[in-house]
């Protein structure tokens, strides 16, 4: 038990360096080989000698590996669990290396959509709203909403992966993480609306407008967002859109207050 905890802890720490040697040939392959090398060695230490063939073969190969960095400990822990079973001569549904090769892409798809596409924008947009409201601790929201959940997922995922082995895939399916990612994206759109409204409020205060003029300004802000979205969806570079937006609103402001 003590060895297992030590192995999982070491694996989790090494997972922080999974992408240290990221390259276009094997993506996270070097990191994954390094992580699994020590896990295999430690995990097989007390097992029968019949494991030496598989581990020496795997240790001499750096193969393609690419998955979501926050879900990687789950995959590695399940891989370790399968490897230990194989080393003990127990029956496994799928081999350790075959398991990793089979699940890395689906796990990457779910993890990337949830963490990069959903949670990261959520944390950033919440922090931006608080910044616009003048809260000086706003950047800490990023830590609270993103870094902390990611750490929890890393640790809990490695424990679940080790305990459940190949069955952890079924657990990921049951959690409906893809649906959760869509819900978070919808919240992000609402937060974007809030930022646009706060921008309108700030602009109105800056230009010292009355209520009726403020309504015209709200329409202008929405129009500005619409034009920017149109331009960006037509592959116009962001710096051009930024310059356009500045010129548009500065011109509008000079018309209102010549």
């Amino acid at each position, binding site marked *: 038990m003590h060895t297992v905890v030590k192995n999982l802890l070491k694996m989790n720490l090494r997972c*922080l*360096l999974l*992408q*240290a*040697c990221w*390259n*276009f*040939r094997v993506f996270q392959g*070097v*990191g994954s*080989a390094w992580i699994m090398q020590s896990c295999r060695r430690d995990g097989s230490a007390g097992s029968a000698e019949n494991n*030496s063939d598989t581990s*020496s073969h795997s240790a*001499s*190969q*750096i193969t393609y590996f690419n998955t979501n960095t*926050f879900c990687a400990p789950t995959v590695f822990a399940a891989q370790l669990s399968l490897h230990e079973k194989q080393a003990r001569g127990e029956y496994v549904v799928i081999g350790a290396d075959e398991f990793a090769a089979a699940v890395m892409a689906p796990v990457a798809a779910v993890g*990337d959509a949830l963490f990069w596409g959903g949670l*990261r*924008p959520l944390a950033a*947009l919440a*922090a*931006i709203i608080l*910044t*616009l409201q003048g809260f*000086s601790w*706003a*950047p800490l929201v*990023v*830590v609270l909403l993103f870094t902390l959940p990611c750490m929890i997922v890393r640790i809990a995922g490695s424990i679940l992966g080790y305990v459940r082995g190949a069955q952890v895939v079924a657990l990921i399916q049951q959690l409906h993480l893809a649906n959760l990612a869509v819900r978070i*994206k*919808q919240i992000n*759109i609402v*937060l*974007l609306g809030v*930022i646009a*409204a706060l921008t*309108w*409020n700030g*602009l109105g205060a*800056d230009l010292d407008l009355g*209520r009726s003029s403020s309504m015209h300004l*709200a329409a202008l802000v*929405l129009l500005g*967002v619409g*034009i*920017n*979205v149109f331009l*960006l*969806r037509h592959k116009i570079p*962001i*710096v051009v*859109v*930024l310059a356009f*937006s*500045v010129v*548009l*609103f*500065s011109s509008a*402001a000079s018309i209102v207050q010549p």
Partner: protein
Amino acid sequence: MNWAADLSTIQWVSLVTLALAGGLDRTALAQTLLCRPIVCGSLCGLIMGNYTAGMLMGAVMELLWLMRLPVGATVAPDDTQATIAAVFLFCGFNTELHIILPEQVLMVVVLFFAALFAPLGRLVDIGARHMNGRIQHQAQSRLERASSVTPPCFLRWANLAGLVNFSLAGLFSQVIILCATLASIVLVVPLLERLTWQMAGVPVYAALIAGVGAVYACITVRYGVILFGTGFGITLLFTLV
């Protein structure tokens, strides 16, 4: 244009550490979001003695690049180094420059050029990844030659070399973006001096609106317009009440 900020050794060391840590956090190490503009911009502002400006510049930069996701083989423009460079330059120039241009206009000008040169950092990052490919190739050939009895430590060294590679790339990227942005400001600010800036706050809000558009353009969900309108409308009502 004179450089006004008299930085202490601790400030210089902190700035280099921030650039290094931010560069590593993007890909190579942990990915804790220290590299995100709103975090590293605020920290850079804190080091330079203008936390509020750093946080606001970080917020604008965050919106502009938020949806450039580091997924698969995609390498996003280096918004981390661009933000640090922008905040560093904005906070570093003396009040003389603030007289030439209003503070918030200068902020947007610096942000514009930093964003313009952020893709240069991307090229440096891509170069580092290609170099990592060579490191991996060497590690692979050594692994194949190594005895299966002794556990080889080539993988550890390959990872360490990759880490050094990424940290150097981050610093190199910072130097390039900083120099390019500085040169552009020196060239352009005297031209902008001729324009009159009565509503100084407008450019920052315009940049935020561009950022909102940049994020919205990349999120595709059902009923997106309705959800955006709901957020906008509720906030508008709260503000009016």
